[in-house]
């Protein structure tokens, strides 16, 4: 297909308006996603009781599981247990308690004792779910994230089409040029260098939640029977309750041994059970699922899964994955990154932040192009700027405030007004976030700079408070082998410096002059086609 001028113009229109529509949400998703890369590390930072260098387990699976299974979890219809892994050195056991609530405990693999961590949602239960659900009620957040993800795919494709000189601009960043020009450079640069990353992440995110986004379509061959659908797609067992009392489970270890033996032969390499779950645990038809959910040295997740009948010990389901399921396992594993590779983890984090810069610079370029069109600042710019400040620097600031709150609130804090400690932290997060929107509405452009200063102060305060409340400043943490804590503190310090740099840069902003012909040309076009790099050959 020939790329005509009309086509390019339509792509410019699409890129501009799809970008304006979803950028604020996309930034939240990218920011929280970047934090979620280190969710377990954030957990350990916020719950000092969990800080422990990885160790070998000495308490066996049966030592841990059977007392709970025959005691507190006796009546529970569900039961699960995950094994200690490189980033989470504890057993985690969950069941439904007598009040019908889901209960979850962490158990030290060496002593077999329960750990009672500081009550907090922290990384795995606040930042990480924020990434895909925005914590909005009734699944609204999933749909907003899904919509934004499709828009992101469209933005990438349209962005490539409008960009004339990909190679020419690839390495170009001109910070000394007019601000609009350098904003566009930054947008192009951060988009282009990590392009495959920016495309594959929204795509795999959508695929992970396909059953939400394509509910009806994927039910057609199964006449709407979801249990049957998942059984066929994932190899689960579709079993119905009988109403008779449950069989006694004498040992889980024996199932683990059997499953690992089957998988090792099938794959030709050792495999390890990392998740045991019991469905219909209080029924005669109880079944035990053993999975290798997150292999440590492979991208693909959930490659191995075997389901046993708890009464007879027979295998109910053990279908090896076909090519479709394998492809899905690789794609979703790529998004979940639970494998053991620190180099990839850090690269993901950096690429995620580059996505944040891409989105923020895109929004800023749009605003600057708009301002140039009229003498007075248009209302559209003021509205978009308010929303951008709130959802860019505002969410960074409130994330920092969340960490600070966690360290200030005593571990035994009861909470107030009927809210427990974990929710009190979340309330502070949202109060700071709302305040950042109000601040942006009042202060306008100056809010960027002021919030950047606030971010720097918050990040440094978090490091200091961690030191004061736990004694683990980066050096002692590193000396104890707590690299996760030391690294997090160092990232916070680096973040503070980045914020100070940004604040000073924003403070020293030169007034916009009309000397840059290229930028003036771009702004004067019918649409401020963002990536339309009408750069004159120099």
């Amino acid at each position, binding site marked *: 297909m020939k790329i005509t001028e009309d086509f390019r113009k339509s792509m410019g229109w699409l890129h501009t308006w799809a970008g304006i529509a979803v950028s604020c949400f996309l930034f939240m998703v990218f920011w929280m996603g970047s934090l979620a890369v280190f969710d377990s590390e954030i957990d350990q930072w916020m719950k000092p009781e969990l800080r422990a260098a990885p160790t070998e387990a000495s308490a066996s699976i049966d030592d841990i599981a059977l007392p709970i299974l025959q005691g507190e979890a006796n009546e529970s219809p569900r039961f699960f247990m995950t094994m200690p892994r490189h980033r989470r050195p504890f057993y985690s056991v969950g069941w439904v308690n007598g009040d019908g609530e889901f209960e979850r405990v962490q158990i030290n693999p060496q002593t077999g004792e329960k750990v009672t961590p500081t009550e907090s949602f922290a990384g795995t239960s606040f930042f990480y779910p924020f990434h895909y659900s925005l914590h909005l009620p009734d699944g609204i957040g999933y749909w907003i994230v899904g919509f934004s993800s499709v828009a992101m795919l469209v933005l990438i494709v349209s962005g490539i089409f409008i960009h004339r000189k990909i190679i020419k601009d690839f390495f*170009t960043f001109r910070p000394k040029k007019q601000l609009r020009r350098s904003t566009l450079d930054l947008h192009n640069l951060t988009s282009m260098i990590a392009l495959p990353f920016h495309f594959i992440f929204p795509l795999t995110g959508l695929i992970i939640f396909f059953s939400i986004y394509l509910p009806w379509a994927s039910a057609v061959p199964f006449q709407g029977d979801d249990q049957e659908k998942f059984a066929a797609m994932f190899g689960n067992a579709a079993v119905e309750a009988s109403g008779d009392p449950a069989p006694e489970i004498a040992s889980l270890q024996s199932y683990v041994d059997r499953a690992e033996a089957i998988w090792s032969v099938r794959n030709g390499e050792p495999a390890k059970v990392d998740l045991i779950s019991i469905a219909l645990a209080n029924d005669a038809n109880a079944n035990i699922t053993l999975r290798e959910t997150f292999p440590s040295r492979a991208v693909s997740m959930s490659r191995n899964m075997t389901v046993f009948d708890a009464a007879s010990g027979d295998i109910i389901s053990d279908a090896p994955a076909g090519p479709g399921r394998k492809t899905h396992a690789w794609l979703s594993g790529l998004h979940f990154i639970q494998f053991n590779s620190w180099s990839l983890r850090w690269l993901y984090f950096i690429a995620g932040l580059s996505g944040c810069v891409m989105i923020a610079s895109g929004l800023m370029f749009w605003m600057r192009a708009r301002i140039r069109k009229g003498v007075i600042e248009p209302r559209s710019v003021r509205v978009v700027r308010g929303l951008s400040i709130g959802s860019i620097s505002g969410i960074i600031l409130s994330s920092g405030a969340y960490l600070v709150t966690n360290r200030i609130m005593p571990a035994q804090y009861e909470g107030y007004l009927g809210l427990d400690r974990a929710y009190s932290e979340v309330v502070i997060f949202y109060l700071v976030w709302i305040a950042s929107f109000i601040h942006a509405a009042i202060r306008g452009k100056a809010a960027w700079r002021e919030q950047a200063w606030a971010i720097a102060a918050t990040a440094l305060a978090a490091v200091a408070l961690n030191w004061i409340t736990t004694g683990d400043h980066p050096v002692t943490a590193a000396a104890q082998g707590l690299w996760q804590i030391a690294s997090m503190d160092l990232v916070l310090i680096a973040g503070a410096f980045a914020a100070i740099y940004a604040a000073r840069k924003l403070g020293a902003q030169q007034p916009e002059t009309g000397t840059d012909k290229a930028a003036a040309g771009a702004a004067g076009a019918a649409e401020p086609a963002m990536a339309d790099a009408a750069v004159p050959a120099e």
Partner: protein
Amino acid sequence: MDMIIATLWLALAFVLSLAGCAMLAMTQKPHWRAITDSKSNPPKTAIPGWLCIAAALVPCIIRDGISFAMLLWPLIFALAAFSIAMTLTYKPSLMRPFSALLRS
């Protein structure tokens, strides 16, 4: 020992990507002139540049296997491209020795 070797493979992948990106950047007149501080015409190094970037996949595979390498390679490329862009922005003369190497 294993860790040192793994780090070396990683470094090799990064250096290859860096060299590849540098060669690609040098095919562009403004970059070439900024690097060499001269009015000469840029060399035709696009193909060797792409080859270097492709070659960076090899140490990634040796280090971590094909599955991890498919993720490692593009991300290392991104880091290398960003490093080259920043060098060109703030200190293009750093790349002068490399440009001299290409000219000879």
